[in-house]
């Protein structure tokens, strides 16, 4: 039914991503399709990684661990943006298109009255992407 799953991950908030990671792992195993873990980092040092290389390494480690855990094929696709907080959903949508993923599994927070202030990235991706989007609450 699906060919390739794309999972956006925020390496700084892995604790809240566990359910989404498990969901993606199950789906990939069930359909026997690969998963690409996409992470977006800024170009300046951050809490997660102090250089883009370090970020890439951590994302590759995550992909390897997920592949092991679920017995699936997994790759990592680290991306940089000069301004990740403003560009995130745009960068993700482009990655979905260009990597040829047809299913996006991503975590997002439950709807909240404050969404107008801080729109959810998941909502934005779902609204504009041509792939199917599975939002994990």
């Amino acid at each position, binding site marked *: 039914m699906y060919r390739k799953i794309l999972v956006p991950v925020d390496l700084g*908030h892995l604790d*809240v991503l566990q359910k989404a990671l498990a969901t993606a792992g199950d789906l990939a195993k069930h359909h026997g399709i*690969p998963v*690409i873990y996409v992470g977006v*980092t*800024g*170009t*300046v*040092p*951050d*809490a997660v990684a*102090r*250089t*883009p*290389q370090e*970020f*890439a390494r951590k994302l*590759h*480690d995550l*992909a*390897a661990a997920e*592949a*092991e855990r679920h017995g699936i*094929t*997994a*790759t*990592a*696709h*680290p*991306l*940089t*943006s*000069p*301004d*990740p*907080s*403003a*560009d995130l959903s*745009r960068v993700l949508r*482009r*990655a979905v298109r*260009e*990597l040829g993923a047809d299913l996006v599994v991503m975590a997002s*927070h*439950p709807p*909240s009255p*404050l969404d107008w*202030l*801080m729109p959810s990235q998941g909502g934005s991706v779902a609204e504009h992407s041509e792939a199917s989007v599975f939002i994990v609450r």
Partner: protein
Amino acid sequence: MSDPRVDSDAAEAQDQTEDTPEVEPIPEPEGDTEIIETDFEIGQDNFAKSWTLSFDIHQVVFTWSALAILAFIILTLALQDEVAPIFTAMRDWLTTNLDWFFLLSGNIFVLLCLGLIVSPLGKIRLGGPDATPDYGYMGWFSMLFAAGMGIGLMFFGVSEPMSHYASSMGGISVGEDGLRTDWAPLGGAEGDQAASERLGMAATIFHWGLHPWGIYAVVALALALFSYNKGLPLTLRSAFYPIFGDRVWGWPGHIIDILAVFATIFGLATSLGIGAQQASAGFDYLFGFGATDFGMVVLIILITAAALASIVRGLDGGVKVLSEVNIALAALLLVFIIAVGPTWDIFTGYFANLGAYAVNLPALSMPFAREDSNFVSGWTAFYWAWWISWSPFVGMFIARVSRGRTVREFLFAVLIVPTLLSVLWMTALGGTAISQVVNDGFTGAQDAALELQLFAMLGELPLASITSFVGIVLVLVFFITSSDSGSLVIDTIAAGGKINAPVVQRVFWAIVEGLVAIALLLGGGLIALQAMAVSTGLPFTIVLLVACYAIVRGLLNEPR
């Protein structure tokens, strides 16, 4: 990576990224840099509540700078008559008694930058030997120019050359106490029209040339180096790591960052307020309306709204685009003035002024034993303090967009190119205005109020209504580009150097800036608080001198 499947797929992913250049892959390995080992974790002192609705702010820096801003506004509004003289007296004392310190430090910054351009250290690349630039030349240059000079070019491009020209023509006058009472640079050039013109232009270029850009370059280079090459957070305190070591993550660092937020927000807000007054005066001059409190508040709201739209769209989609529009408009106006103004005079004047600048530079930048004390403290020292108080903001913004450039390339673009362009701008605008006085006997621009001199000068050229309109739009756009980059910078500092804090935080800072400007505009105290902001030039001069040391140490420690 133990799983072979992952390895092969990683290679496949690499191939894919090569096929799809639009998705910018992580520049893999970027080569050796000296990463500083520190126990500090970026964001460790931050307050970030939960993932669902998190604010990501540095507890100490955010809280204290917010409180200090509030306190100073209340103080200035409530006790205006009491604090205004204190603030202005402080600024005047600094620029009068410590003028030598500002001038000396300015020279050190320029010499360091020029030295680095020619030294082998210039080969070091910001972000590691294999790093690639985030922006092309045009976008990069537009952003740093729009943030760095901005609005001053519009107001001083005509008025400053004219002012120095007039005072040079007036020559030297000595008061009863034996001190000079005139404002002429150096020895003036009494009655000599040509010499006065050259001296006036040299003095103007001195204030808008190598020195201001040297100041910005020092801050920007220190931040870029310690952030991209050493892995420290992008915040002012990182440049102090060679001095304080891990103590920069404590109070010494907090104070530096709080001071930077403070200087930036008050520098921007007071400029916004004063600029709104000037822009509305321009509106009034051109269209006959706008010079009311209501008109000015509307202007500030419009400028802030545009800046908000820009920062919400981000660096690429907002700030860069706006900066390019800004530079394109400025270029349009410049080309127009050159074409319809005294073209040949501007052309020859460009080289003559550049020569005059070179000849007079040693005398103009001499920190000690100056006879032209009014010029030194009233113009030069004031400008230096002003540029330096802006340097945390401009420097940090330049650093943010300069990853992937070599030190030499960086300094060439931040120091040399803007200086050459400033000479052209000043020659075209100031030269045209002076030529109107000298050749045409038109003194309208000379006699007009400062904020109207540009429009009075344009009024004598063809298509005046169109160019004046472009001029006023340019004034507004220059404001927007300063406001948006300023809000980005404040947000980053207040988030402990994190650039991926929620967008709503930068929105907060942009709104604060607009509100401070409106409050001060209506309640009074803009000038007083600007004097306060300029006074922060003194502590930052010391900060910059330390940064010079840190740059050299940091560059020497890079693997070569």
